[in-house]
């Protein structure tokens, strides 16, 4: 089982040497290892040109979220519990554009999207354009577990939230002062002008993937959308196969980046189709992101995990804040080819 794929190992320094040799040792014991499967949690805090002033907070945010997710596994939770815990931590963190810290739409309102998916049954829950909920990922999970449906939108999603006792919070608690000021500044622009700058905009959707000790995989993705977006605009995040997908037979993926491009190539499902055809996780992710760049000129990022514990964090944007926990080791990165690690205390 490889934590670092061969081509990524070339990009690293002394860490890669350890992993190449580790992989050789492990291959003998692979069959034994499979019975005590290694659990992994990977999270991302968005793929975009993260400015330096947000870099430190973004990295510490994803590290904390990955640890939250891993703690859920250690407490006996499954992959779905882990991705929900990780994404909740990201939603509660105002540095990311999901839940708290969300962007305002053209009407000055908050509209949130989220998805969660269980790879063992392909069950899924999603909400789009739900208003004023602090943790859309948990509402998405409630859709999955408490209704016969997969996706609820708009007022229907809010009605359901009320029916299951999920509180609506005032806009002010979800939107930062900074965001409100930015929105005020830009609301006088015509929509057409805004689109030109789309690639420079924050695409700080958050997400997580996990595989638990039983080999079950899950994914979750959550977002507040793009600042000043059209009312009712739905991006890739809550769309199954695009913002995320999870299947015990191939793996789990959560995507971030230019939403409309991710939709055009159904990025999550595309990555998994490559894995189904035998590509390692990192190569599958790279091939799919490259295709998205070539075919529709879109940039983005993806985190992916396979049922055997292979994982990758890949992006074609300038930066992506990501973190992963496996075997009490915390990995994280921001810039391309950056791959740092910390030992976690047992």
């Amino acid at each position, binding site marked *: 089982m490889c934590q670092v794929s061969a081509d990524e190992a070339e990009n690293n320094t002394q860490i890669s040497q350890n992993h190449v040799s580790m992989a050789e040792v492990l291959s003998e014991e692979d069959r034994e290892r499979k019975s005590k499967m290694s659990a992994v949690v990977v999270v991302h805090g968005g793929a975009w040109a993260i400015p330096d002033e947000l870099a430190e907070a973004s990295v510490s945010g994803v590290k904390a979220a990955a640890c939250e997710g891993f703690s859920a596994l250690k407490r006996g939770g499954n992959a779905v519990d882990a991705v929900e815990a990780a994404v909740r931590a990201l939603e509660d963190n105002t540095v990311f554009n999901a839940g708290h810290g969300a962007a305002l739409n053209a009407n000055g309102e908050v*509209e949130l999207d989220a998805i969660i998916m269980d790879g063992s*049954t*392909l*069950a*899924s829950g*999603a909400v*789009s*354009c739900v208003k004023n909920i602090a943790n859309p990922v948990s509402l998405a999970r409630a859709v999955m577990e408490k*209704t*016969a*449906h*997969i*996706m*609820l*939108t*708009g*007022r*229907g*999603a809010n*009605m*359901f939230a009320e029916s299951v006792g999920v509180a609506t919070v005032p806009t002010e608690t979800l939107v930062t002062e900074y965001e409100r000021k930015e929105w005020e500044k830009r609301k006088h622009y015509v929509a057409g002008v805004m*689109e030109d700058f*789309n690639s420079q905009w924050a695409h700080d959707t958050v997400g997580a993937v996990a595989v638990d000790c039983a080999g079950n995989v899950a994914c979750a993705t959550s977002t507040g959308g793009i600042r000043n*977006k*059209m*009312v*009712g*605009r*739905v*991006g890739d995040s809550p*769309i*199954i*196969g*695009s913002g995320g*997908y999870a299947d015990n037979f191939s793996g789990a993926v959560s995507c971030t980046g230019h*939403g*409309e491009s991710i*939709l*055009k*190539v*159904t990025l999550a*499902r595309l990555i998994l*189709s490559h894995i189904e*055809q035998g590509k390692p996780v990192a190569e599958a992710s790279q091939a799919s992101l490259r295709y998205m760049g070539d*075919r*529709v000129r879109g940039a983005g990022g993806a985190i992916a995990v396979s049922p055997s514990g292979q994982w990758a964090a890949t992006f074609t944007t300038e930066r992506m804040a990501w973190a992963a926990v496996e075997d009490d080791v915390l990995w994280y990165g921001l810039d391309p080819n950056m791959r740092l690690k910390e030992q976690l205390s047992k």
Partner: protein
Amino acid sequence: MLPVVVVHGGAGHIPKERSETAASGVCSAARAGYAVLRGGGSSMDAVVEAVSQLENNPSFNAGCGSVLNVKGEVEMDAIVMDGKTLGSGAVSAVRNIANPVQLARLVMDKTSHACLTAEGANQFAWAMGVPKVPEESLITEYSVMRWTKNLAPDANPVECQMGKMGTVGAVAVDSEGNIACATSTGGLLNKMVGRVGDTPCIGGGGYADNEAGAVSTTGHGEAIMKVTLARLILFHMEQGQSVEAASDLGLAYMKSRVGGLGGVVTVDPQGHWAARFSSLQMAWAAAQRDTLHYGLYAGEHVTQSIDNPH
């Protein structure tokens, strides 16, 4: 082999008394789509025309004739996709408009977004000058009858979904080899307010790619979403399967993995097409080489000249 258009009027259990309406409806829509193609129109024009006709036909669960949500309201979903650019437009839970497929196309053509939902979709419609229609104009006696029956506490869930016509859709390849798909629906009978099914979800309700082909799906929405049925079928085609084999593989997988039934219309860049279903019936029709093909029951395949007045 080109141009070609294939349409469906929903997969499910179509009672005998509605079968003639179903067959004539899809035949009309296929004829209309074909006329567009023969006149030099694009595959996108053809699928939008075909689906608009089915939306206007009160016998189908799209536009007029849509099923009602639990509150007795009409909330509609639709998608269009352009195989050349992979551009798409979708609307979900939109209300008070006659042709959601046309609004979906406007989303694709007039915005930089791919999907608009609920009040936002309606706001966009009014901004585009799309007429607001009273909800009553979309509601049929049949829909009300089915909705009322379903509200009964002892309503049989299987019987509940029977008899309603399904989602409608179309795929086409034009003379230039451009491929498109379109799908439109009123959704699931007595669905929760705001429930969105597969139809407006790219890869679920439909997908089109000039390099692979196009699919429009119908059937149990949640099952279709779980397996991203349209995209799955195209993956099989990309790996060398024929339109029939790919469609059957996708449908069989959906049945075995998540217990869902449905149907698809599928086309490849050369113009090979298939109309396949794992449900009891699916109303479908195809037009190619001035020939009209159609069917409803498993194994049924009738052909006649396209110019034969129906």
